[in-house]
């Protein structure tokens, strides 16, 4: 397939960026989106030009590093799929594809398509943990957990911290990410102990990092590659209100 790409190029955080046009020739439909960009980059390097900088690591949909907005949709047109798992067969020969970085005040651009997502790490640092004594590993079944609770916690734990929810949100809000982390821990007996403190600290950090406020548009849920649901945001709100008393 032959494609025309419009890619956001920006030298560093402070310089002015713009969309630049590139041709991608002889792309196999079996390539992943990132492999297609690899092909384009190889050509750019051969021509002595600066390759397109983009984030990636596992390329198997689990690390949350890949982060591109493709034709206006974070992670591209295929639902519940990260960019690295998106394949070129979902595009047509001759397609024009716009590729842009995550956009949000809290995610400053480092270069081209790479943004700084450490704000999400700082939300985790603020309270996304359980305090336990170190020492011997406890017995797996020492604390009984009802199966539905364990399932909900596991669903929430699927979040890979990619930030697509922030990129999709018209308000640049990190509520879906934070909701996933808060729910994951609040569902379990080990996490309940610090639940009130955690939800306050994490939502406070969210605000300090410059993320926006949720207005219940649910764009985040539609963009999330891991199917994190907005009902977790309701759970987050519930935990926050409970923590006030």
């Amino acid at each position, binding site marked *: 397939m032959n494609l025309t790409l*419009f890619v956001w190029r920006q030298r560093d955080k402070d310089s002015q960026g713009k*969309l630049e046009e590139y041709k991608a020739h002889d792309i196999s439909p079996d390539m992943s989106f990132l492999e297609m960009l690899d092909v384009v980059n190889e050509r750019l390097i051969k021509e002595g030009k600066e390759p397109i900088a983009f984030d990636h690591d596992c390329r198997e949909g689990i690390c949350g590093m890949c982060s591109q*907005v493709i*034709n*206006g*949709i974070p992670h591209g047109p295929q639902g519940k799929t990260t960019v690295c798992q998106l394949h070129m067969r979902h595009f047509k020969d001759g397609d024009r594809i*716009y590729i*842009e970085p995550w*956009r*949000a*005040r*809290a995610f400053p651009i480092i270069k081209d398509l790479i943004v700084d997502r450490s704000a999400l790490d700082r939300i985790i640092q603020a309270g996304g943990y359980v305090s336990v004594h170190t020492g011997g590993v406890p017995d797996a079944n020492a604390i009984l957990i009802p199966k539905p609770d364990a399932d909900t916690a596991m669903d929430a734990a699927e979040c890979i911290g990619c930030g697509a929810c922030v990129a*999709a*949100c*018209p*308000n*640049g*809000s990190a509520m879906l990410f934070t909701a996933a982390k808060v729910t994951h821990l609040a569902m379990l007996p080990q996490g309940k102990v610090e639940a009130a403190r955690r939800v*306050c600290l994490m*939502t*406070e950090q*969210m*605000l300090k990092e*410059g*993320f*926006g*406020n*949720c*207005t*219940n*548009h*649910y*764009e985040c*849920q*539609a*963009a999330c590659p891991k199917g994190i*649901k*907005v*009902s977790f*945001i*309701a*759970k*987050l*709100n*519930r*935990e*926050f*209100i409970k923590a*006030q008393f």
Partner: protein
Amino acid sequence: MRFIDTSIGKKVIMAVTGIALVKFLFIHLIGNSTIFLGPEGINAYAKGLHSLPPIVWGFRLIMLLIFGIHIYFAVQLTLDNKKAKPIGYSVDKNLAATFSGKTMIWTGLIILGFVIYHLLHFTLQITSPYFIASSHPDNFGRPDVFKMVILSFQKISIALIYALSITALALHLSHGVQSIFQTLGLNGDYLMPKIKALGLALALILSIGYLSIPAAIQLGIISL
């Protein structure tokens, strides 16, 4: 951090003031519906309402305060959110956001403009100089609210202003009511579709209810 400085705290205040405003809309609609009973209905209702000034004024002040708080946080949150997303995408796509959701501040501001006009029109009776109810008593010596309303809504321009504002209200509520449940954490996978339907139903009931009055007068179903 104080509750009202937190992101969710501000949203909770929006939701709680929203509930109070929606409740007021229901009570107000029930009161207004007495117009379908003719002058006996609405003139008696208006007289009854105003027979206890401290209660009327207390109620008005509380409603005004709630309205003011809702608007204050609405503007603050909207400006905040604009700043949190300084640049959009060159391809503007929405996967889930609705027209009514994205226009909350605009439908809200239309409602604000309308409320000011509405108070000037029927409460202070400044913009309806061709008929002031308080100086035109009916046969029982009560202000003839019935006649004032009929004469107003027989004017197509006034009926249209009301219709437009009620449409804005319908849009505001179709996103707003279901939002209340999500914001207050009273939502879940099972409830979500039902709550969305409830929000839409409440928005429709209220707007059709309010629209029915100018519509009935324009169509001549209620007349002097």
